[in-house]
């Protein structure tokens, strides 16, 4: 297998995996970045959402070979100390319940806010439509996104 260079959270990693391995499993099992979660494997739940070149993607269906030189950001890369604006808002609104889907929710919200600093409810519905939360934290997610827009 040819070695692949993957740029994750500002660091370059030489990895040796099958090129069709989904990015999710490279992050979790090869690089040990377990904040990104497996939920469905078919891009229907959003638990695996990360940023590739600043856009929210479902890492469970993206082959690692398709990432190329694009920068990957995972929840760990937002900030390690919960100082990113979406993390702060998530804490202020006490969003998580079980927490399993929240890495993906945070990444979808962060991608939305980076392209739209003041999203409407309809914008939020659209951008977050791919992220399921079984605990039903949607209202607090919405409030947290609005809080980021308000407080930056």
């Amino acid at each position, binding site marked *: 297998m040819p070695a692949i260079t993957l740029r994750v959270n500002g660091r370059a990693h030489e990895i040796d995996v099958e090129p069709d*391995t989904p990015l999710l499993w490279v992050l979790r099992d090869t690089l040990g970045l377990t904040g990104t979660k*497996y939920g*469905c*494997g078919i891009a229907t739940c959003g638990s695996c959402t990360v940023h590739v070149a600043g856009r929210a993607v479902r890492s469970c269906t993206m082959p690692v070979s398709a990432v190329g030189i694009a920068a990957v950001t995972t929840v760990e890369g937002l900030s390690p100390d919960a100082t990113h604006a979406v993390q702060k808002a998530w804490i202020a609104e006490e969003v998580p319940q079980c*927490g399993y889907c929240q890495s993906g929710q945070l990444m979808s919200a962060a991608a939305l806010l980076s392209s739209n600093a003041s999203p409407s409810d309809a914008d939020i519905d659209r951008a977050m439509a791919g*992220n399921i939360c079984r605990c*039903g934290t949607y*209202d607090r997610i919405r409030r947290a996104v609005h809080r980021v827009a308000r407080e930056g």
Partner: protein
Amino acid sequence: MGAITKLDRRDFLKLGAIAGGGLLLGAYVPDSRGAAPEAGSSSPFQPNVFLRIDTDDTVTIWVARSEMGQGVRTALPMIVADELDADWSRVRIEQADAHPSKYGRMMTVGSTSVRGGAWMPLRQAGAAARAMLMAAAAARFGVRAGECRTERGRVLHDASGRSATYGELAEAAAALRVPARPPLKDPSAFRLIGTSPPLVDTRDKVTGRALFGADVRVPGMLFATVVHPPVFGGRVASFDASRALRVSGVRHVVEVSQGVAVVADGTWAAFRGARALDIRWNDGAFAMSTPEIFGELARLAERPGAEARREGDASAGLARATRRLQATYEAPYLAHATMEPMNCTADVRADRCEIWVPTQNPQGTQSTAARLTGLPVEAVTVHVTHLGCGWGRRSRTDFVEDAVETSMKVGAPVQLVWTREEDMQHDFYRPAAHHRLEGGLDADGRLSALHVRIAAQAISGGRPIDGPAVASVADTPYAIPNLLVEYCRAELGVPVGYWRSVGPSQNTFILESFIDELAHAAGRDPVEIRREMLGGHPRLAHVLELAARESGWGTPAAAGRARGVALVEDKGGLVAEVAEVSIADGRPRVHRVTVAADCGRIIHPGIVEAQLAGSVVAGLTAALYGEITIERGRAVQGNFDGYRMLRMGEMPQIGVHIVQSAEEPGGVGEPAVPPIAPAVTNALFALTGQRIRRLPIVLDTGRAATPM
């Protein structure tokens, strides 16, 4: 943890001084099903609340319940810390490993973590430690304990201006007797209980650091998955592993009791290997499909079942009724579909076994591993991780068996993760149910007689009645003078189990819909007919009033919308909900949900509000979309494409109204699930005249446009 030194009294145990100085205290909390051991009984005393005060002022509280988003790791320590008058910022939480007896029953089910007996003993544990620290301070200050007071981790003697921290006093306190009757705070003096401090795990959950089951990494660990027989009750006949073993990264293919496991260098390789397996199955005897299953349930309900409740004479009452109504209702099988698929990490060695697992059942995990490995229970360590939802699914230990057996077979630590498809197609489903109902109204439009016959598979060991199958019907809070509830046991091959709120989640849909039918038949207001039957239940009557008032019941809804109401008494929680719905593109659209709840005294209002709102989402998701269908003995739906979840854009506006109560704490994680389905279907009836008698909701779109 230090050695147990002596038994001070029946309910408390001081574990004495600990390394480095400090106080370790254990207290007995009777579980929800059993009482404390009798005084003077010969059974050994077992404490099950543990707290420790270290000389550096850290207070450590062990939590022996599983955290799945319901906030136990915050709420349970708050109760202890409040009575202790601890400095909350110095409280550390430890998740208890499984132990057969040390913590009592560790199973986290039935909304029982606070209610059902834990509330008072948790308070007593905190109060006992506080009294000992005060006594130690009094001795040090040369004053009477009664002259001292406590505040945020300190004992103060105001007259002399002296004070000492709990850490400074812990060692001296550890030498004292545990008080027999520690004084409890007057509730007006609570500083933490009734407030909403930040949840202790939120920071970890927004940085990706919170450890869920599959986030565990053990040195030398291999990654695995398992393929189970597609037909319930099936078995492996034979298999050919050669193609799977050719998948890059696959190391082993082994047969385990429940299927075939593929072990690899990474989860993806294991998943690919599993797809490459060539397995011949012995499908077994069960080959029914959904229509036949409901046909069988309907047939069972044609004959009398076991009596679950009898008041007066239902058949005579029905014969006397001026108006009679009959209906049959159905509820489907439901999967739990927790966001985190089933998984378990096991490291089985010759002399010990260590397990990391998101479980609601640490003790069952421990005993299961002991049985499979032949090791004594003490040699099995079970660490409980965060749970990516539980909903009852994680009270089972089938996924533990897969991991333990696989680790034994390959001789290495193994993390075994089910694919979403395995998770959804090998669940213990909420049972499908068929209800036959007949109700009678008297000349005044009162419900004078009700006969309910429930056909469903059993999920408890109860005989002849399966308690969960008849819950919230047999014990309906409504005063109905002539009532007969019967249970017809169905024996079918579909695995069934506990699903968030259990029996009431389907039974409330059915009973509350039928009450609504009777109200309309009598030409009466649905709130009014319910109020009339709740004379003996002032708390439930109050939440009904509250929901009606806050929802604007009795005032016109916006054009194209209508409201429906339903209520339940479930697991110590009393909940009434009003849903406001319209129809868009032939589908119900839920705009507003008003939740009124009396769950007794509230520990953490923020958690309670989140649980009640989340329960509405759970129940609404099931009402709109939830159904697992069975085809020739197999579950059809395997992922979120076929088993839909409510998404952000479908969220109603949810208004939660919590009754301020000084009653004993009740359940909060489940009781708001049951009323939402009937609140929605009753609203749809008010809007369209269509009575939904089967879930998930399917509207006859030809009629949907015709308001009543």
